């Protein structure tokens, strides 16, 4: 079976949820991957949405974080204050799954503005639940399409903290979660260098050239000596993903 770069990205992201108990699902690409994980490597995974749905088991891909099916299939639906205060904040959720408009070399995220805050070139949607997901989940995983304007050297605005200025910054701020342990794109997988916290290429998707990844990255990309090639999507993974997305597109719209 052949696949698209987006499918490779989503399948890789879903695999990273294997063995996890709970995932706080941010709006966007992550939702597709998290729902795929429940259909493949992690059927018992508890999906938590900021709308208050805990243990949602949607049969079709949600178009928003508050789709009716999320609440109807959830183990519990709680208020929005409760989902943030009782469930996210104490650090009881294993993984936070986030998208981003921009992510920098240390995994910091911008979803607020491009350009000056008061007179921005592009006004983005804003923070939503991301700042506290990035702060409080035990670990976070970021999923974005790999473009130079998305993976940037520095951010003009930090909406959600990754590793900040580098090693020790999160701890100094008293944050409990480990931060972005992985950045998954349509070209490969980046992980922080233990010494510098800089995101480095650890795995490249089949058929992608390292130079192409370098060219699509907004900073001088370090490639790990032990660079792996990402395992191809299995037929089972692709079938599960496609059935998810078709069923959803028949409902109109796509994931934000």
């Amino acid at each position, binding site marked *: 079976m052949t696949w698209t770069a987006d499918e490779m990205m989503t399948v890789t992201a879903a695999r990273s949820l294997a063995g996890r108990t709970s995932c706080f699902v941010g709006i966007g690409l992550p939702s597709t991957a998290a729902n795929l994980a429940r259909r493949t490597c992690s059927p018992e995974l508890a999906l938590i949405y900021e*709308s208050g749905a805990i243990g949602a088991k949607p049969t079709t891909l949600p178009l928003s974080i508050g789709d009716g099916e999320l609440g109807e299939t959830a183990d519990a639906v709680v208020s*929005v*204050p409760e989902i943030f205060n009782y469930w996210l904040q104490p650090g009881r959720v294993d993984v936070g799954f986030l998208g981003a408009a921009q992510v920098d070399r240390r995994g910091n995220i911008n979803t607020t503005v491009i350009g000056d805050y008061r007179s921005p070139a*592009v006004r983005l949607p804003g923070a939503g639940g991301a700042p506290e997901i990035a*702060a409080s989940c035990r670990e976070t995983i970021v999923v974005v399409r790999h473009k130079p304007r998305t993976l940037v050297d520095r951010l003009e605005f930090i909406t959600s903290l990754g590793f900040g200025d580098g090693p020790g910054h999160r701890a100094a701020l008293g944050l409990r979660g480990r931060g972005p342990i992985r950045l998954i794109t349509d070209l490969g997988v980046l992980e922080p260098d233990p010494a510098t916290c800089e995101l480095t290429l650890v795995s490249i998707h089949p058929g992608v050239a390292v130079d192409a990844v370098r060219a699509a990255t907004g900073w001088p990309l370090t490639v790990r000596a032990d660079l792996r090639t990402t395992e191809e999507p299995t037929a089972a993974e692709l079938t599960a993903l496609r059935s998810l997305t078709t069923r959803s597109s028949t409902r109109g719209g796509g994931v934000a």
Partner: protein
Amino acid sequence: MAELVSLAEGVAELVHDGDAVALEGFTHLIPVAAGQEIIRQGRRDLTLIRMTPDIVYDQLIGAGCAARLVFSWGGNPGVGSLHRFRDAVENAWPRPIEIEEHSHAGMANRYVAGASGLPFAVLRGYVGTDIAKHTKTVATVTCPFTGEALTAVAALNPDVAVIHAQRADRRGNVQMWGITGVQKEAVLAASRSLVTVEEIVDELEPQPGAVVLPGWVVTAVAEVPRGAHPSYAQGYYDRDNDYYQSWDPISRDRETFGRWLEEVTAA
């Protein structure tokens, strides 16, 4: 006991020029009909408050009703940008709009403080981000027991909260179920409240997951069937995803939006 009113009466009585108005709804039960009635009645200089401003706030902003927006995520869920919101922020069209921006956790806790009669709430949030640099309603508070520094957010107490629910009874007791977001907190934090409902019934049958607001904490209730369209009302109708899609081209262009606005206000 809440007063039973028509939507037009409710908006006329409770929403005034210059008010801080929270039309809440987290994807589900969004009070869209009430928002469009506010446009129809030509309210001005409103401070619009909402965690997740979406299409109806794009409409209010494009119509020039809003002087300020207090929010944590503004977009067209499942589609993309709110173009009227962006046009206001990026180009001050049709008028400049001041924004006060938070995270969801911060906004939710601001409503909780407001509903609890407290001036602030404490959370672990905003740390290491640039959000707090641009708002005066985020500060630091120190734990008197551990000395740990935590984040404080100022209470939100809107002049009026507007929400949509599935049902009310004739005494104005309101019942909503499914994803109920932050609506209870918004109503309890506000000085006044208007609740639109799918139907007014004699008896509220208990429902799994139902939140009930007793009539004595609600100012007015208006029966507005499909009042949450294009969002959904669980047990009544599904989300109209095509409408969210079709809003994008309308919202992108000032003239197309202008024609949409004429139709709505003519209605």
